[in-house]
C-alpha cells in the first residue's frame, strides 16, 4: 500500500526532504519534551476543567485499510472494534501512554479542512520507535518531509506525512543528545588583549560555540547552547539579548533567562582568565551550570585563569 505524493509537494525544499531521512541514534529513551520542545510542568490548578488527553478520532474511508496502516506503519496496538457508541464501523487503537486512536469509517471524509493546512495531529516516539517508522516509510514509499527542517535543535527529530486518507500527521522524537551537555573541548581559547573589549561587547567564538561578553563587572564566557534544548542561540544586537531560533527562549547579556520558554537556567559558563600578556583566555574543558547570574561569576582582567563558577 503506497501513499501518493501530496498535492502541495512543490512547496517543499530540498532541505525539508533530506532532513526527513535523518536517523536518530538507537535508544529507548522516553521523550523528555512535549510538542516542539515545550516542557510541560505539573499543573498548579487543583481542579482543571479536563485532566488528560484521552484520544483522537479520525474519519477514514476504509476502516480495515486504516487499521492495518496505523498498526503496521505507526506501531499502534489494535484494541478492538465497536467499542464506542457509534453505529458506524470503527476501530480503537492504543499507544503506550494509554492514549487511544479511534478510526471511524464514513463516506465523506474531510481530512483537512478546506482553506487551511493548519489541522494536523502529532505523536511522539522514542528514538528506536522513530527508526522503525523510518523503515516503514521507506517500505510503504510514503512521501515524508520536515516542515521545521531549519529549526530543529541537536537531537530533535520531526517527520511530516499523510495517512492513506490524507490526514496530516507529524511525529516528534527527542533523543538524549537534545539535553546532554555539549563541550567544545578545544582547549584554551586565546581571545586577544582584554583591553580591546569595551563594556557591552559580545563576541562569538564560532568554532567553539562560546560567547565572550564584557560587562561592567568583568568578563563572562558563556556556552552558545541553549539550556532548554541543545539549539545554538544567537546574539540579537538590536534587542540586547540572546535568543534561540528553535524554540524562542531568550536570555540577557548576563545569561539570565528572560522569556520564550518557562523556567530555564541561565546560560552555562566557561572559566575565564588572563595570560601574562593581558590576553583573555577561556578554558573550554569544563562547563559550569548555574541557575542565574551572580556578580562573582565575572572575571576582572587582574585575575589568572580560574574556574568561573568558583
Amino acid at each position, binding site marked *: 500500500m503506497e501513499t501518493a505524493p501530496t498535492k502541495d509537494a512543490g512547496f517543499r525544499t530540498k532541505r525539508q526532504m533530506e532532513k526527513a531521512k535523518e536517523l536518530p541514534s538507537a535508544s529507548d529513551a522516553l521523550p523528555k519534551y512535549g510538542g516542539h520542545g515545550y516542557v510541560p510542568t505539573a499543573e498548579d490548578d487543583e481542579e482543571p476543567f479536563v*485532566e488528560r488527553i484521552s484520544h483522537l478520532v479520525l474519519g477514514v474511508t476504509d476502516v480495515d485499510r486504516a487499521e492495518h496502516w496505523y498498526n503496521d506503519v505507526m506501531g499502534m496496538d489494535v484494541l478492538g472494534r465497536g467499542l464506542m457508541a457509534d453505529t458506524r464501523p470503527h476501530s480503537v487503537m492504543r499507544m503506550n501512554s494509554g492514549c487511544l486512536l479511534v478510526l471511524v469509517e464514513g463516506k465523506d471524509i474531510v481530512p483537512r479542512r478546506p482553506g487551511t493546512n493548519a489541522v494536523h495531529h502529532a505523536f511522539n516516539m522514542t528514538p528506536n520507535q522513530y527508526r522503525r517508522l523510518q523503515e516503514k516509510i521507506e517500505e510503504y514509499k510514503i512521501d515524508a518531509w520536515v516542515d521545521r527542517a531549519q529549526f530543529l535543535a541537536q537531537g530533535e527529530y520531526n517527520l511530516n506525512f499523510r495517512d492513506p486518507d490524507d490526514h496530516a500527521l507529524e511525529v516528534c522524537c527527542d533523543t538524549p543528545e537534545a539535553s546532554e551537555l555539549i563541550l567544545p573541548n578545544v582547549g584554551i581559547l586565546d581571545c586577544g588583549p582584554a583591553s580591546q573589549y569595551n563594556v557591552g561587547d559580545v563576541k562569538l567564538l564560532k568554532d567553539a560555540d562560546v560567547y565572550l561578553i564584557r560587562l561592567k563587572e568583568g568578563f563572562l564566557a558563556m556556552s552558545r547552547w541553549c539550556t532548554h534544548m541543545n539549539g545554538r542561540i544567537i546574539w540579537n544586537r538590536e534587542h540586547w539579548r540572546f535568543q534561540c531560533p528553535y524554540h524562542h527562549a531568550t536570555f540577557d547579556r548576563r545569561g539570565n533567562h528572560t522569556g520564550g520558554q518557562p523556567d530555564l537556567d541561565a546560560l552555562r559558563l566557561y572559566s575565564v582568565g588572563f595570560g601574562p600578556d593581558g590576553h583573555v583566555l577561556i578554558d573550554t574543558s569544563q562547563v559550569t551550570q548555574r541557575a542565574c547570574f551572580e556578580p562573582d561569576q565575572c572575571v576582572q582582567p587582574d585575575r589568572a585563569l580560574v574556574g568561573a563558577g568558583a
Partner: protein
Amino acid sequence: MANIEGLDHTGRSVPDVREGEDFYVSLLGAKHCNTIASATEDVRAGRGAPHPCNVLAGYLFVLFPHAKHLPLPDALKGEDGSRIAFAVSRQRFDDVVERAGDIGLSFEGPVTHPEHGPFGESIYFTDPGGNYMEICWRRDSDQARTRLAWEREAEAATA
C-alpha cells in the same frame, strides 16, 4: 507494547486566534505557552502567520488563523474529519458536564458507550473555529499513563 508512545500536539484552525485562545485559556483553563512567529519554513516563506500555542491538560494546541472563511459545522459531534478528546475521572464527569452548562458551552450528550469498551460517557462540543472536541471518562483509567519521561518518573515516585 506498541511502537509509539502517544499523542503529542495538534494544530487547530480558527477564524480569530485571539478569540480561539480566549476559548482555550479562559473557558477551558488552558495555559498560554508561547506565540510562534518564525519556527517554520512556511512562515519564513510567507505561507504562514504567527500562531499562539496553548497547553491544556499537558497537551499542546497550536492555533492558526483561517486562510479564508470557513462555515461552522451544523453538528457539535463529528467524525468526518478529526476530533480531540480529553478525559476526566468518573467522579468528576458529572461536575464537568454541569460546569460546561454554567459557562455557556453548547454541547451534545452525555452519550453512554458500550460497557465492554474503554470509554464511559462523553460530551461533544466545538471550539470557535468549529473544530470538534470531546470530554469523556474512561473505564480503563487505571491503565492510563502519562507521556513524557519526567511525568512517568514523578508517577512512579508517588505510586
